[in-house]
């Protein structure tokens, strides 16, 4: 028992020694002499115009120091002009713990990173008491604060200015060119030889739906979606309308196209007129087949529901982009017993279309419809280009998953170089 522990006196001596030692350490750490020797000004301070931006921003970079910790704080100081009589009088525009704000935490991709990852970095932007004028010179520096001590680095000068190129998005541009090249190559291939297109039941059913409407002597209702002509889904819907109108002209079936946007209406009138001309039935064309209702979402929905219930179209086409009105329209259409074909890129409305329509063109099939119906080499080639693009993305997803896993398992940074290329591609 004796050898295993200290007696009461022994314990109190040990406690006293511990407190004495702790007091010495605390006392020494508060000594000005030690603080002055350990606290050096931030080293290698560089300031420059933030690259790839619209101006009104400066970036400052400096080296890490031995005192980097949550206890110490960095201050970023700013003043107008190139001369600074007293750096201590400069305005403090930012303050943060010294173990934060590293280049590695920034959103810059590796090809535009201005320094290595372990360097400190702070970007000053207009707002929150800071106003940086483009073309005006500023002095900027960094101070470190530990307890009551503050040491300031020598100020450096920088001038914010707007840039003409966002180099951070070069990966995006590169991939856009790559995909564009693939599409043009695929179009060239499609002109030389026939390309297989898989069946799209929704588009095969177009003829069936129009035929049924013709037999029943009822009209066809075609909607182009909620967006205007600036949206690709509306353009795709308008292109398909041309094909549908050609068939309705050939069969002599009535076509009703209610619109939410007047410009879309004007465009669709032209498309429909041309389709009737191409079908050799210009006399059957009616200007009123395309008509405007309202831009208001639910007023439009109520009006179209009314048309469905009164005129009982034999086939309803819902192409383009839709919001909450999707189910209100399709469920009403289903209650009238019409054949319903939908095509949308609105992923959040797809479940409603799938459950209430006979056929649904899912996402990209809306864009493929034009190629499928026309079989023109340019259109089919574009589809092949899209497929190659998808295969490429699938491959990148696989390789990226392996690289990211390797990066974590081996605790290395090099996989990030590859992952960055495909990061933030919008």
């Amino acid at each position: 028992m004796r050898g295993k522990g200290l007696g009461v006196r022994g314990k109190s001596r040990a406690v006293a020694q511990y407190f004495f030692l702790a007091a010495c350490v605390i006392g020494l750490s508060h000594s000005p002499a030690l603080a002055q020797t350990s606290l050096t000004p931030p080293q290698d301070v560089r300031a420059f115009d933030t690259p790839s931006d619209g101006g009104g921003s400066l970036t400052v970079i400096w080296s890490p120091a031995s005192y980097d910790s949550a206890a110490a704080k960095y201050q970023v100081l700013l003043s107008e002009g190139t001369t600074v009589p007293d750096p201590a009088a400069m305005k403090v525009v930012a303050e943060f713990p010294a173990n934060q704000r590293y280049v590695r935490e920034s959103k810059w991709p590796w090809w535009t990173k201005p320094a290595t990852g372990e360097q400190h970095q702070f970007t000053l932007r207009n707002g929150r008491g800071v106003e940086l004028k483009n073309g005006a010179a500023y002095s900027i520096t960094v101070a470190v604060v530990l307890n009551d001590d503050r040491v300031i680095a020598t100020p450096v000068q920088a001038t914010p200015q707007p840039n003409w190129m966002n180099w951070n998005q070069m990966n995006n541009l590169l991939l856009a060119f790559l995909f564009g090249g693939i599409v043009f190559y695929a179009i060239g291939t499609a002109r030389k030889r026939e390309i297989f297109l898989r069946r799209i039941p929704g588009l095969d059913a177009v003829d069936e739906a129009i035929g049924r409407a013709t037999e029943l002597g009822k009209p066809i209702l075609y909607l182009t979606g909620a967006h205007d002509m600036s949206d690709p889904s509306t353009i795709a819907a308008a292109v398909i309308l041309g094909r549908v109108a050609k068939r309705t002209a050939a069969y002599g079936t009535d076509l009703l196209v209610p619109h939410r946007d007047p410009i879309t209406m004007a465009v669709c009138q032209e498309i429909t007129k041309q389709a009737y001309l191409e079908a050799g039935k210009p006399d059957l064309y009616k200007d009123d087949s395309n008509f405007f209702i309202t831009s208001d979402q639910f007023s439009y929905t109520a009006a179209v529901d009314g048309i469905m219930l009164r005129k009982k179209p034999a086939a309803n086409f819902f192409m383009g982009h839709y919001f909450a009105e999707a189910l209100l329209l399709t469920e009403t259409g289903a209650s009238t017993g019409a054949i319903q074909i939908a095509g949308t890129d609105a992923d959040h409305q797809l479940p409603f279309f799938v459950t209430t329509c006979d056929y649904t063109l899912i996402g990209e099939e809306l864009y493929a419809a034009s190629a499928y119906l026309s079989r023109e080499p340019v259109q089919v080639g574009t589809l092949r280009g899209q497929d190659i693009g998808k295969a490429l993305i699938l491959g990148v997803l696989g390789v990226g998953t392996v690289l990211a896993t390797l990066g974590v398992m081996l605790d290395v940074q090099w996989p990030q170089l590859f992952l960055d290329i495909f990061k933030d591609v919008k």
Partner: protein
Amino acid sequence: MIFLRRQVPLLITLITGIVFAAQYYVPHPASEQMLTSVTKWLQIIGGFALVLGVSSLFHVHAVKIRRKEAGWGYSFVLYVGMLGTIAVGLWSNGKEAVDGTMTAFGWIYNFMMVPLQGTMFAILAFFIASAAYRSFRARSREAAVLLIAAVIVMMGRVPLGEYLIPLSGDLSQWILNVLNASVRRAILIGVSLGTVALSIKIIFGMERSYLGGGKE
């Protein structure tokens, strides 16, 4: 004429398409200013186009009333409603309230338009129920999978459901975060590529059927 109807629009499409695709990569304020200006132009053109739309609406319903077509009474109601609202709007200077007091125009909007819109939106709940009833009948293997997934998700999203079947919470999260999210992303990738491909076709004049007027 064919030059004005075909070549000029295609040339405008080519130039503006390339310029505004490039604009995305140019952060300079001049580039932002150009985008803002063009957006304003679009709004102005849209405003003028509204005249086209309203004249179409008047024409269609005037024909219905004149011919006494089936349901012409609704067209009459539309005329009364539209002209009445325009008259009241002009009388109220287009203001919904003056000095905190609601104008007649504001009254029409708040006590007619908003409740009617709310009513239409509320119908959605009943339509969801009827659509779900039709879709969830397990008539095929796919419908059965849909039914099971829907039941699990519904149970997991409702406190009582999760209380009755504790596993349903985690399972529904897994269905939403893994199965659902991955499929949605796959669809979005396809949509994005389709959008880019269509844009390329339009910019370079390969897709021109949206212009009407044939291929030449």
